Each structure stands twice: as structure tokens, then as C-alpha cells.
């Protein structure tokens, strides 16, 4: 799709307060590029963010946006998209917002498969509250609130999404500007819920899941013989452990978005000045 919208049009004039070197800079740039390159306009785009470092993203981007309460960004995005299917809806969050306090909504948003995208900045740490364990932190990760490690299995976001019936799962690394943008673009273009987990390192509080770690361990799934339309293969890739895959790991080519199944087409904002013309029929039903 051709468009004269540039990614800079999605940028606000507010300077980010993220720590210098934070992965969220790259993540956000890729989101803005993906939105612009898929032909969207800030006036037709609705961005929702939750709480945490990632939640600040609505402030730094220019579009219609809501920065909500912790963990509930997905329901807000779904509500907006269903009310006006013409909007491009993108939800941004972090690993705490999406996989801890909002884990329930994550699972159900995946199931519902509304045509929107969800980008999670996964840094495996709580940064805004200065360094506590997150649901994706490693089992032996020592923090101020987990001095002996978390002693819990980390959430596997991709496996969780697949088990809930995801129609699109992608994973990217915030430093890989090109690869990240491409995957987010595909998530935006996907007919359904486009979920992208982004390795977005926290340079201040996480000295384990660092840029160096990801650079060394990431495998671009596009360079393997993986078929992204093969769900069984995708399940194998995301559950085998030990490898941090990036790229589009699964996409259901036959995905039909929820709103299409439900026959939602119109912009619900448009209503008559009074009761609908045939409204007395509603009363007569009670005869």
C-alpha cells in the first residue's frame, strides 16, 4: 500500500524519558515505521498502552491513544476496534502488564482474534519500579524481591499464545531495526490478532538478558527450514528451549478475525438524534 505518511508523523514532540540505551527506543521506532509503511495515518490509529516503562509509549507517539490502568490495555484496544473497525488498533505493553497482571486478558484476547496488533516489550524485569522479577525472569534471577531467584518457571509467552489459539506469533529483537519492523508490519497486516514479543533489553536493572546475550543467542527463524504456517512445527520451536527465535514463528493463513465472524462492520459512533425509527417495535415485543 502506498502512502505519503512517514514514520515521523507518528512521533510526538515529547522526548522519551527511558534510560539511554533502553530497548524500548528501538521497539517504538519499529512500531511507528510499521504503522506508516502499512499505510496508516495517525488520525485513524488508536494506540493503547498499559503501565510500566512500555506504557509511556502513547506519550511519545502521535495518534489517538489511551494510557490505561495496569494490565487492561488489551480489553481497551478490543473495545475500540469493535466499536469502529475502520481504526488501526495497536496495543503496547510490557512483560508485567501482559503476562502478569494482564495475563488473563492476554489469553482471552488471543482467543478472540480481533484484527489488531499487540507488541510486548519483554525485558524480563520490572524496570519502572526499579528492578523486581517479572513473569519472564529466569528461575535463578536474583532481584530485590527474589533474593534466591524466582524459583518459578518463567512464562513462555509464545507457547501461551499458541495454546490459546493464536493466529499470528512473532518475536523480534529491538536492536534489529529492520527485522523488528518487518515482523510488526506483518502483525499489523495479519487478519486477526498479531502478537509480537520483543526482546527489549533493560540496561539498568537486568544484567543477564542483555544486548550481548540476545545478540549471541538469537536465531532468525527465517534462516531455518521452519514453515510458519505449520502449527505443530511452531509449537516445537517455541517449546524446545534453549534457542531464542526471532521472526514470524506462526501465522494461520486462514485466520478470520472475530469482528468478521460477528458481522461487525459499521462505525458504532454514528447514531441517530433520537431513538431508532422502528424503536416502538421493541416495545411491541413485550405485548
Amino acid at each position: 500500500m502506498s502512502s505519503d505518511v512517514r514514520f515521523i508523523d507518528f512521533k510526538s514532540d515529547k522526548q522519551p524519558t527511558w534510560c539511554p540505551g533502553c530497548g524500548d527506543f528501538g521497539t517504538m521506532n519499529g512500531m511507528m515505521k510499521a504503522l506508516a509503511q502499512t499505510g496508516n495515518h495517525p488520525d485513524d490509529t488508536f494506540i493503547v498502552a498499559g503501565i510500566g516503562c512500555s506504557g509511556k509509549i502513547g506519550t511519545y507517539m502521535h495518534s489517538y491513544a489511551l494510557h490505561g490502568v495496569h494490565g487492561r490495555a488489551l480489553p481497551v484496544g478490543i473495545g475500540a476496534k469493535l466499536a469502529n473497525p475502520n481504526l488501526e488498533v495497536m496495543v503496547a505493553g510490557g512483560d508485567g502488564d501482559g503476562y502478569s497482571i494482564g495475563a488473563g486478558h492476554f489469553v482471552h484476547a488471543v482467543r478472540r482474534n480481533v484484527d489488531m496488533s499487540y507488541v510486548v516489550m519483554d525485558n524480563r524485569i520490572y524496570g519502572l519500579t526499579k528492578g523486581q522479577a517479572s513473569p519472564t525472569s529466569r528461575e535463578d534471577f536474583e532481584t530485590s524481591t527474589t533474593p534466591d531467584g524466582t524459583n518459578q518457571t518463567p512464562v513462555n509467552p509464545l507457547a501461551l499464545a499458541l495454546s490459546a489459539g493464536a493466529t499470528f506469533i512473532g518475536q523480534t529483537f529491538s536492536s534489529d531495526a529492520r527485522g523488528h519492523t518487518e515482523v510488526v508490519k506483518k502483525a499489523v497486516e495479519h487478519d486477526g490478532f498479531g502478537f509480537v514479543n520483543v526482546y527489549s533489553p533493560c540496561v539498568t536493572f537486568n544484567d543477564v538478558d542483555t544486548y550481548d546475550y540476545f545478540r549471541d543467542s538469537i536465531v532468525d527463524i527465517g534462516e531455518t527450514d521452519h514453515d510458519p504456517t505449520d502449527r505443530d512445527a511452531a509449537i516445537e520451536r517455541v517449546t524446545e528451549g534453549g534457542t531464542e527465535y526471532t521472526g514470524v514463528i506462526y501465522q494461520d493463513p486462514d485466520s478470520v478475525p472475530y469482528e468478521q465472524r460477528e458481522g461487525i462492520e459499521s462505525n458504532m459512533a454514528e447514531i441517530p438524534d433520537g431513538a431508532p425509527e422502528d424503536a416502538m417495535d421493541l416495545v411491541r415485543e413485550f405485548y
Partner: protein
Amino acid sequence: MPDDLNWAIGGEAGDGINSTGKIFAQALSRAGRHVYTSKDFASRIRGGYTAYKVRTSVDRVESVVDRLDVLIALTERTINENTDELHDGSVIIYDGERTSMQDVEVPGNMVGLDVPLKRLAEDAGGAIMRNVVALGAACEVVNFPIENLDEALSKRFDDKGTAIVENNQQAARLGQEYTAENYDREFGYDIETTDEDYVLLNGDEAIGMGALAAGCRFYSGYPITPATDVMEYLTGRIDRYGGKVVQAEDELAAINLALGAARAGARAMTATSGPGIDLMTETFGLVATTETPLVICDVMRAGPSTGMPTKQEQGDLDMLLYGGHGEIHRLIVGPTTVAECFWKTVEAFNLAERYQMPVFLVADLALAVTEQTFTPDTFDMDEVEVDRGKIVESDDVNTWADEKERFQPHFPTADGISPRTFPGTDGGAHMTTGLEHDSLGRRTEDTEVRVEQVDKRQRKVNTAKKQEAWDWREFGNPDADTLVVSWGSNEGAIREAMEFLAEDGIQIRFLSVPYLFPRPDLSEAVEAAETTIVVECNARGQFANLLERDVFQRVERINKYNGVRFEADELVAEITDLLRPQEATTQ
């Protein structure tokens, strides 16, 4: 015998009590009689007992009374549960062939009609129709033309095909004929029919219909008694107007879904009961500070915690007034009748958009489950007005832009109400947040901007206080010494009690208050009265507490919190008792 008839069917949950009761209510309504129903019998023992009670008259009926004339008892317990309401000459219809009913003893002063409900139903095509056989028997007892029942049965079973409809109509006839042949006597009832056309609906349905009339296009909710009927009513119907009902994974999602839809410009709503309000409270502040118009309906039931899910209470007022951390601006509207459930819902949507604020629509179980008759013009759709407030189109966006041409969704206007653009409006893009924000909707901790925005949001409330009527509904003698004040569903029972009290020479001025915040100033009324009595279904007197603070004066209280709505006759007794001169206690 009076034309006023009190009828009930009772049995175990799963016996089809509600649908049978509704069919009879429908038949009476079709015959031009007024109907008022209730499903909230006091239960002395915990368990599956359930009943559906119908009060019917040619004149309007607004409450239940402590009296039962005809009872269909599917279980022995049904009789025991209703001993106090049965009287000399009450008719009890039961199936003596049912194993568990063989030893039933109908009190000597009453009339027992032993009708083989199951056997006759089988003759008509299936045991499942035994309740309908009982309805036929009831028609015979009260001399009610059975053709009216035919119509109601046809409406109820229409989607199941003609054969099922005809079988049911036949079952009713077998019950009627059996009763006529085996109990050849006059029961003293002669149910008069009229040519009036009434509609029969409950408060939840009225709320749902009000939402559709007002242009609500998005409803999200999580099923909960007694609010589920709102959701079920809207499901399918809202689609006719391009809208949708979304069943959420929990109430946290429900309110956030509705919030998202409202941000996108839809008139959106969620409905729940107390336990759901607990969860939704998390998002109240976000709705308020982002200045999002949203209608949040609480159909109250007995709490706290899971409480008594199918019982009446008005215990959520404090939570609705104060729930949530920080100072949250909100409006609270509380319909007092089933018909008002419709009109107050319409009003709630207009208030929400006019003032860009959360509006709580508070109803209670007694309103929600009461099926009541009305003339169709009670819901005159031509009277419905839709006011969307300060919506800005793209050609006017610049009027509200700052020097950098950025749209200001929280611009501090004189009346506090800011311009609003929907996503998709060119040039109107903006963010907003639950963080304190500036006029652009961006986070700020600037002390002056903070004060400016808090004041701006408060100004909206002040504007609303000035612009809207916030009136009460007044009944009785305006010069009476005794003032009764109430809110919610108690209005009907109080009005009926007033008629009885008037016969005893006790005059009452009754103010039924449909606005909880802002609410009408009752100072003059309380000052003019010798005695002020607040009637409400809770233990602490939450409205009475408010009123005392509003008027700086003590008031008398009548509270009921056993899970059952007020009945007119008990109010007569309680009010009479309160007004009786207190004996001096001198030592």
C-alpha cells in the same frame, strides 16, 4: 371477593417455575389486566425452593402484598413456605399422585384441589407440560377465559413449532376440564378482562430497551445475577442497529472493553452487580480522569461478598458514591420503577456524554426481576432525546488546538466540559491517560496544571448541578406532617402503603429520589416535616446517613435487610408504629 388476585406457583429450582409464572402473567396482561410479579419469596430453609408470584388487578398494581389467594404447589414445601400468606378460602392446586405429595394435608380452612398434573400432561403429549395443566386448573378456579392463556402459550412456544403450541394448549384445557368436572363449585373469583393493551417487562429489560433507544451500540459484561437479563435482552437486538454485545472474561475486562468502545465514540455500557462493581472499581478513576462517557449499571443484590445472590438489597450506595482511590467525579442515577429504568437509562447516556463522565445507573434486584404491565405509550420513543455533548468535527478541530496546532481534549473551559474528537477525525489525534495530564492529555506533575485539571473536572460537576433538574418524584399530601423519603424500588410499596395509611387518617408526603449524586436538596422538606422517615433495603441506612448530613438533622429509619423487598402492609405497620406517641419513661 376483591378483583385483586394474588397467585403463585412454587417448587424446586429447575421445575420451570419462572417460565410458567411468566406465561400466566403474560396471559393476564393480554387480557387487559395489570400485573406485578415477584420472585423473591422469603425462604425459611436454605435450598432450591423457588416461587413466582403474580398480583393482578384491573387497576395498576405497584407492589406485592402479604396475601396469597391461589397457589400452585409443586412440592409440599411450597405450602409450608407460604403458610403466613395463605388465608381462609385460599385455593391450593397440587398433584396428589406425585409420590412426594401423597401425604399433603391442606389446612382445613383452605381449598385443596388435587389435580393429576403429570397424568393429564402425559395425555396431552408429555409430562413436561404438567405446570401448564396447573395453569388450566387455575384459569377454572378464577374464571379466567382460557383463550388468553392460549395466546401466551403460543407466544412462549412459537419457535418450537405448532405441534408443541397445540399440545400445551391442550394440556391447559385438560387441567381446566378436570377441575370443572371434579370440583363443581364456585370459588368466588371472576377475573374481569378489559380491552387495554399492555406490555409486560421487567427492570432489566427496561434498562436494555432504554439503552437501545438511547443509541447504545456497545455492551460488554460478565454474566451475574441479577444483571444478566440486561445482557441477554441486548444480545441479538443490539445487532439490528449495528451494535454488539461482548461477553468479557471478567468484569475488569468488561469495563475496559466498554471504555475502549466509548473512546472510539460509541455509546457504551456495562452492567453488573455488587461483586462485579468491586472489580470495575479499578477503572472508575481512569474513566473519570480521561473524561470518557460511560454508563455503568449496578443491579444491586444482597452482599457483602457473595451474600445472597438472588435476594434484594440496596447496599451498594456508599460504594457507588465513594468507590475508588483518589477523588473520582461521577454522576449517580437510580430509577425507582420499572418504567423509570427505561427513562433513566436514556438520561444516563445523555448525562455521560454531556459531562464526559462515568454515570452509574443503580437499580436493585426487586426492579430487575419484577415483570410489570404498562401501556405502550409509557415508552414513547418519540420522546427520546439524544444529546452527544461537545463533539468536534474535523473542520472545527483548530478552534481547540494549541499554538502548535495540537488538539486539546482536556482544555479547561469555563463550564469544565472540553471538546471531544473521535478517532478517525482528521486533526483531532490526541492521547489521554490515567496519569494527571495537561490539556493535551499528556502526563504532568506540574502543580499548577494539576490544580487546573482537578478544578476543571470539578467544574463539570458544578455545571451539571446547575444545568440539570435533579428532581424528586413527589406523592401524597404536600402539607403532611410526616415526610417519607426513599430511593430505588421501594416507591411502589410506599405508595400503596400510603393509601392504607390515608384510610387510617395518616397523611404522608412521600419523596422518591431518583438521583443519588448530585441529589435534590431536601432541606426545606425535612424542615417543614414533623417526622422524616427514610425507607431503604439495607441495615446501615446509607441514604438516611447522606440525608442527615445534607440537612444537618436526624431522621427516622425503616430498614429491611433480610433479602426480601418491602411489602405495603408491613410498611403500614412500621410507619404507624413510628408515628405512635412514645410513652414517657420517667422514673
